[in-house]
């Protein structure tokens, strides 16, 4: 039972960050219909930025996190303007290939700049873990969970309480009509990609200190993000959040009780099984932004 609780706790922390990854991608995938293979690279970018600012430059850890998120948003905007805007109207598979190209370029740039050796990020939190009864959790993870929950709440507020969010939801429903109503579609697309990328960068920034930072960390992140989007339904933030926690839970339990080698396969198996029985995703009925 103790072991189970421990796994549960780990899953909750992981789930929060997975949710961020998923929310970011579901917005991009849902509103812009872009199969964003570069999503994981923004995740890695977030982690490397924290490494640069906190470890290499030695600046404040929390500052590094903020810089990572902002840098993620900026990079996302850049990618959208340079690569996606000219491709508007092209086939979904053509755009997908462009994103694969972006993914290749980004990952190898990271490899070139930082080398292939994994990097560790030292955090200002105490080393000794927080012990609550039979379970223990490191302070880093507590912080990560808190930060993730904050960002999830923030995303929700953004989509439901702001004008920008309203415009995004309108664009999701029907881009043409939204345009006719005066919504600046170009701007919305850039904003969507920027926000999605910022969330991915945030996830990477938060998980980087927990695990290690490597150039290939983004690959699995991309695929897991897709799994979460499928679980939760396109454009559905609530679904993505729940999906993120489900995936983390399945991974933790699967790794703990079945086999740790197949841990990463859990996500994929979920995808395959879900799509076979419900080809439109688990929450497809609620396919809307929000």
């Amino acid at each position: 039972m103790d072991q189970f609780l421990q796994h549960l706790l780990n899953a909750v922390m992981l789930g929060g960050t997975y949710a961020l990854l998923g929310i970011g991608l579901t917005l991009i995938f849902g509103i812009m219909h872009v199969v964003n293979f570069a999503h994981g690279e923004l995740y890695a970018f977030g982690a490397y930025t924290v490494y640069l600012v906190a470890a290499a430059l030695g600046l404040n850890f929390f500052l590094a996190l903020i810089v990572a998120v902002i840098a993620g948003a900026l990079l996302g905007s850049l990618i959208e303007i340079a690569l996606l805007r000219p491709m508007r109207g092209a086939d979904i598979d053509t755009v997908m290939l462009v994103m694969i190209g972006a993914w290749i370029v980004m990952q190898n740039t990271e490899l070139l700049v930082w080398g292939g050796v994994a990097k560790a990020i030292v955090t200002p939190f105490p080393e000794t873990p927080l012990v609550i009864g039979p379970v223990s959790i490191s302070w880093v993870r507590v912080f990560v969970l808190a930060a993730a929950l904050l960002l999830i709440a923030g995303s929700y507020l953004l989509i439901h309480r702001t004008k920008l969010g309203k415009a995004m939801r309108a664009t999701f429903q029907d881009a043409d009509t939204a345009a006719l109503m005066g919504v600046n579609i170009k701007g919305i697309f850039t904003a969507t990609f920027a926000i999605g990328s910022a969330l991915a960068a945030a996830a990477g920034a938060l998980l980087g200190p927990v695990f290690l930072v490597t150039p290939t960390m983004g690959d699995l992140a991309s695929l897991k993000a897709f799994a979460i989007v499928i679980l939760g339904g396109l454009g559905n933030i609530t679904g993505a959040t729940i999906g993120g926690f489900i995936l983390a839970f399945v991974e933790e339990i699967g790794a703990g009780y079945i086999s740790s080698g197949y841990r990463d396969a859990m996500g994929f198996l979920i995808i395959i099984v879900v799509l076979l029985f419900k080809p439109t995703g688990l929450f497809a009925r609620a396919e809307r932004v929000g």
Partner: protein
Amino acid sequence: MTRALPAFWLVFLLSIPLWLQDQYLLHILIITGIFIIAAMSLNLLLGYTGQLSLGHVAFFGIGAYASALTTLGFDIELFGFRVVHHTWPALVGLLVGMIVAGLSGYVIGRLSFKVRGAYFVIVSISFAEVTRLVALNWVELTQGPLALTNIPPYTLGFPGLGDYTLWNKTAYYYLVLALGLIAYVVISRLVGSRIGRAMIALKENETLASAVGIDVTRYLVLAAVVSAAMAGGAGSLYAHYLKIIDPDIFLFIYTVTMVIMVITGGKGTLAGPIVGGVIFGFLPVILRPFAAPAVQWILYGGLMIAIVFLLPQGIVPAIQRWITTRKPAGALLAGSSDPREGR
């Protein structure tokens, strides 16, 4: 003149080992040839039938492992039963590799085609990843990361003349060339036929295809099976050439390589995968003295983006269009309405 071109290329390709001394270049040719066969098989599914399959390397790898295990033999415990297989000749391995890959293509085809568009992309990638993880973790069967080694080369038996084992590169080159030609002919025959028309129709407009009486699922699955079997055959060639394979063969980057070859060459054309294959097979060789692997990949990524931006249909259709616009007579030769030409 365009009619004579294929014959010219064939003679040229046949002659290469006679004058090419550099063993390394011959090695590159062989590997490129194997990947071109895999790319052609992907083209059938992606280019002609319009399925965004990004898990293709799974079939390649399954073929490789099935072939290797058939030839090496294995001894495992499965659900409490001991399953022992003794070694079989390598050529049988090729056949087994193709059959097993084809079967997995059938299973994936039947199951995955309930799921469409971008979702199917993700399912296909997931399938390849799961296969990789199985190869990595089912150590009893696959040796996991320690790799399957000492895979024997093919042996051709000529009745009355004795056996001939393909040890050297020249022999292997001709084998790859021969199988590549067969693969090309198979695809060419297929896409120019009623079956091929059905596949193209369902890519173009699935509702309409259904309405004129085409059993969409059946042809999707057929495309998947043929495509997978061919990729499996290429995988077997790969395994028996390198004589060693490990789970890295299932890495997504190999699928990406095949996809780049097909898309930049021109999906839905016969020559596309070949042109793409040659370019991306030889670029590493040309760039090797100048650039580290990471830099090379940055260039490939950039090249892919550039081609998608500038020549969205690929290089071969662009060349065909160029021929049509340059000479009026060229329009007669290049602008045929033969579906074989592709668009």
